[in-house]
């Protein structure tokens, strides 16, 4: 390993201020430049390598010369030179001539910051193309658009860095070899393809949330990056209600973040959260987005999930939660997704609405679902509903299983507290 090729790497010993300046410029340019170059060469890995060299040069020179007036043009010029070098090194006759021609075309296009075409949306569609294995899609977006290295992404997705590295290399090779286009799909294809982009964006965000304690800096970053991707999507697709719905959903979750831990760092479930700790600005933004999405009159799963969040946060004003309304929203979600996770939430909402037995019966219907056998929230929900219906021995057993399956220390502690109270 000669150098860390990506921007956000665990290694790094540069002095703080020049690094911050260069990283700031990099953050706003990296994805745009990767997208711009790979949309023309269809070689994502090549574009990343060339840009890694360009950013390395920037980190070396900018602290001395100052950040240039047009950082993107500067980076693009250097990256283009690197692409030419790399193409010459490969020396495979005709292919080199073709590549050089493409690269020549790149520099003849305007390289002024504001007029550089924004191909990031096209890159997002390529990263989440059906020909790319599903487990590589969110990681690929994080790497190509935001410059995360494989090790950081691997930590968030709980796989080994080597596995994640291979997954990413394979996916980029597939784009090049299979000729996956870097284009925004036609209208007819758009809904299905957009669903994949939204799913990968949400995956990036929720993997960041998996570390609920926010103890891991790497994962906390992923939450911000997931939000950043969702903001980008919503700004590029302002008339797609699901893109707006997804951003709203993430903003609701982010707004409640400060209330998810008490002063001692212990886990606080939603129903017990102090609504004064919720971030009002983020909630207002989420509500406005959800409203805007609803005026487009095309409901979908992210809008419905955001609507559930909206119903929960309404108690900051009404001081009560409208559980029957939440059950109704989960019913609608279940019809769209048939997701066992939705079914769990619906069961809990049923119990909260006053019918614990019905909630428990709804959970019983899920026992055949193999994906839930090791799913901690299922056992925690089951334990809670069993204890409410007075089946204490079974409740204790379910709590013990939930504790054994928990990965978050604060959640484990909370569940142990619940078990002790029985």
């Amino acid at each position: 390993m000669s150098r860390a090729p990506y921007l956000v790497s665990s290694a790094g010993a540069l002095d703080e201020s020049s690094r911050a300046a260069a990283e700031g410029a990099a953050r706003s340019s990296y994805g745009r430049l990767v997208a711009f170059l790979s949309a023309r060469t269809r070689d994502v890995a090549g574009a990343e390598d060339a840009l890694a060299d360009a950013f390395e040069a920037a980190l070396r020179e900018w602290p001395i010369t100052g950040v240039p007036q047009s950082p993107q043009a500067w980076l693009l010029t250097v990256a283009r030179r690197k692409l030419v070098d790399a193409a010459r090194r490969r020396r495979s006759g005709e292919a080199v001539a073709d590549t050089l021609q493409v690269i020549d075309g790149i520099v003849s296009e305007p390289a002024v910051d504001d007029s550089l075409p924004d191909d990031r949306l096209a890159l997002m569609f390529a990263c989440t193309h059906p020909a790319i294995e599903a487990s590589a899609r969110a990681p690929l977006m994080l790497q190509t658009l935001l410059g995360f290295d494989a090790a950081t992404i691997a930590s968030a997705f709980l796989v080994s860095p080597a596995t994640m590295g291979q997954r990413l290399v394979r996916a980029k090779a597939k784009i090049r070899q299979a000729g996956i286009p870097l284009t925004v799909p036609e209208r007819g294809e758009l809904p299905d393809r957009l669903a994949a982009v939204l799913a990968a964006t949400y995956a990036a965000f929720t993997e960041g949330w998996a570390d609920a304690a926010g103890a891991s800096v790497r994962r906390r970053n992923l939450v911000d990056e997931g939000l950043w991707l969702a903001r980008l999507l919503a700004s590029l697709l302002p008339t797609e209600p699901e893109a707006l719905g997804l951003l709203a959903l993430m903003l609701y979750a982010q707004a409640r973040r400060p209330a998810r831990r008490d002063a001692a760092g212990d886990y606080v479930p939603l129903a017990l959260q102090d609504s004064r700790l919720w971030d009002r600005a983020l909630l207002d933004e989420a509500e406005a987005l959800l409203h805007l999405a609803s005026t487009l009159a095309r409901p979908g799963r992210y809008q419905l999930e955001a609507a559930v969040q909206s119903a929960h946060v309404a108690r900051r004003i009404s001081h009560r939660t409208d559980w029957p309304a939440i059950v109704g929203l989960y019913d609608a979600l279940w019809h769209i997704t048939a997701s066992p996770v939705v079914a769990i939430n619906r069961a809990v909402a049923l119990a909260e609405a006053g019918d614990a037995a019905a909630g428990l019966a709804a959970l019983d219907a899920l026992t055949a679902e193999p994906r839930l056998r090791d799913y901690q929230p299922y056992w925690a929900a089951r334990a809670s509903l069993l204890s409410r219906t007075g089946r204490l021995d079974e409740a204790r057993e379910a709590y013990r299983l939930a504790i054994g399956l928990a990965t978050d220390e604060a959640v484990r502690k909370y569940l142990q507290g619940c078990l002790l109270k029985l």
Partner: protein
Amino acid sequence: MKYLLLIANEEAAMKAMTPADMSPMIAAYTAFSEAMVKAGVMGGGERLQPTATATTVRVRGGKTEVLDGPYADTKEQLGGYYVIDVPDLDAALSWAARCPGASHGAVEVRPIQAM
């Protein structure tokens, strides 16, 4: 595939724990073990006594050398292990993340060489 989960902790920090801190941790380990049994992946595991009780043996040139203490002096010490049988590394990593030791120290995941 079988994997060994090696649990490394700072012994000094463990020693400093009060019984009130200790009992939820033991309960968490018990719950973790039960969960693995229920999932059908558990292949055994034990907690080890502290490294102060360790003795290391080496035979060099026909001479037996017996030393007091662990074989390596590290910041974190081996405190216990599990053997699990799961389909692949990703599954092994998700069990390692659930191990209470992962929240305090570190869990090393090592595939066991098939004989």
